[in-house]
């Protein structure tokens, strides 16, 4: 009797194990994860409200989005309100938020949602998709990377050079300070005065920059700054004014060593241009620095 009970006990234990293995197998997420899907859906929903944000023809869904775990990419191809998902070997290894050129197409590559959350980032992953999609747009329609100067420095190299040069650093700090007035609701009524003051300081600073520093700064402010401007607008819509001010505006006027100052600078240039001419984006082809566009409104 005791032996029979023991056998029944083992059988029950085995059944519990088999049940757990089966349930584990059933509940394993395969392919594109639900959280990644939600982030993409958020982009589609945001677009219905935000549209192209004034950049003629910009639509994030025009570019494939790959959610990557570093080993595999799960690629979304949007088509008329629906999307197909395919799987491929990761095009980038490691933790990446970037664009990827696949033949003539530019695609967006972002980390999977759970990896993104683990970074502790306060941004929605959907806003990163907007940011990278904007780079795909810049490159598909305006070929910004293809047209970039061969003399350009990498973002990191440029930042290191400027951070270590007191005069260049101080004058850039001044530029940021002037531009940040546009984020202050009490002062941004006088956009032309801000623009004039900014152009004067920027022109003086251009004189002490080498050619490669000048073209590189113009490039990153234009490319990254405008993408950051798009990203900030998405966060403002998705997370509200407080989150927008906190993450994008409050510190934008401060000089920070590293690459981020070019993002802040470029974003504020876009904001200044919005005040000078709300239609400026419709005719902007990413073929000239934002400084030049600003200068064209004050001459």
């Amino acid at each position: 009797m005791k032996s029979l009970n023991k056998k029944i006990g083992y059988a029950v234990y085995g059944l519990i194990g088999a049940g757990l293995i089966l349930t584990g197998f059933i509940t394993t997420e395969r392919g594109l994860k639900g959280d990644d899907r939600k982030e993409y859906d958020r982009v589609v929903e945001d677009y219905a409200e935000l549209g192209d944000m004034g950049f003629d023809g910009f639509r994030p869904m025009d570019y494939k989005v790959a959610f990557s775990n570093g080993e595999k990419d799960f690629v979304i191809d949007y088509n008329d309100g629906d999307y197909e998902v395919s799987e491929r070997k990761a095009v980038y290894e490691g933790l990446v938020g970037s664009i990827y050129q696949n033949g003539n197409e530019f695609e967006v590559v972002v980390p999977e949602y759970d990896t993104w959350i683990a970074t502790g980032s306060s941004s929605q992953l959907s806003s990163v998709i907007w940011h990278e999609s904007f780079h795909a747009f810049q490159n598909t329609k305006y070929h910004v990377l293809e047209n970039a100067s061969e003399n350009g420095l990498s973002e990191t190299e440029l930042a290191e050079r400027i951070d270590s040069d007191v005069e260049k650093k101080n004058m850039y700090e001044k530029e940021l300070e002037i531009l940040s007035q546009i984020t202050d609701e009490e002062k941004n009524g006088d956009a032309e005065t801000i623009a004039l003051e900014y152009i004067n300081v920027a022109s003086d600073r251009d004189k002490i920059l080498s050619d490669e520093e000048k073209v590189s700064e113009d490039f990153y402010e234009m490319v990254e700054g405008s993408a950051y401007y798009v990203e900030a607008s998405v966060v403002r819509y998705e997370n509200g004014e407080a989150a927008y001010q906190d993450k994008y505006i409050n510190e934008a006027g401060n000089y920070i060593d590293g690459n981020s100052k070019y993002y802040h600078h470029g974003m504020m240039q876009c904001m200044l241009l919005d005040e000078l001419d709300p239609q400026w984006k419709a005719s902007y082809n990413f073929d000239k620095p934002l400084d030049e566009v600003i200068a064209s409104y004050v001459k």
Partner: protein
Amino acid sequence: MEIVLNVVKEKIRKKMLYITTVLGILVVMIFSSDMGSLTIGGKNIKDYYVLIPILINVVNFLSGAIALAMSITTIPNEYERRTSHLIWSRGISQSKYHIDLTIGNVIVSWISGIILYITLGLFAIINGYNNMLGLIFVAILFMFIYTAIICTLTSALSIKLPTVITGVIMIIVFLGGALRSILKLMSAVLTGFGGTVVKRLIGLFPDLAGLSRQAGNLIQGKPVDIHVIVIGLLFIWIAGLGLILFRRKEA
């Protein structure tokens, strides 16, 4: 049942249990009241809904540490004191003996965990989040799985391995599981063969961080990932198999 109760009685006399529980209560008190504040990204976290997942992580971690510290010596000590021989003479099998000793440890870990969760609940009321109370107590179930994983794994290993080796392995497993999300993130930047190996190894740790995260999700009204719970239970099942199958020669 008698063996289980004896383990519970013996363990609740341990100073370590009280020290760790009091430490947990203090942590919850400090961060839940105006005496201290937790800052993330330079910002004070005052909203209890934001704070609670972090506190759950801390409370579960402390409960896991209690479970580990208690389980590591229980079975070896029984054999060392030859208590095991008294048990065999009463016709109780080794596997039942191991399981009962482990259940005793699990119960004590749960008791100390419940005390910490009651503290969380009290501070939820003090901070005006009475509506959260029910969910906090449901979240205890995640702590039950968390500590049971540690107790069963530690106990199973302690049957076959020397205490020091069990301790080293379980500290690695415990920390690896509790920090699994961070390790996963760090490994995401690793590339090549080495990166793949590290990622696979991290996947072997029980997802203790995931269990705490699900408890936080439950309270915050976010979706709970059933898969994490099932895999947690599977770890307990596998360790339970060890308790049944592993034998000591001294017996």
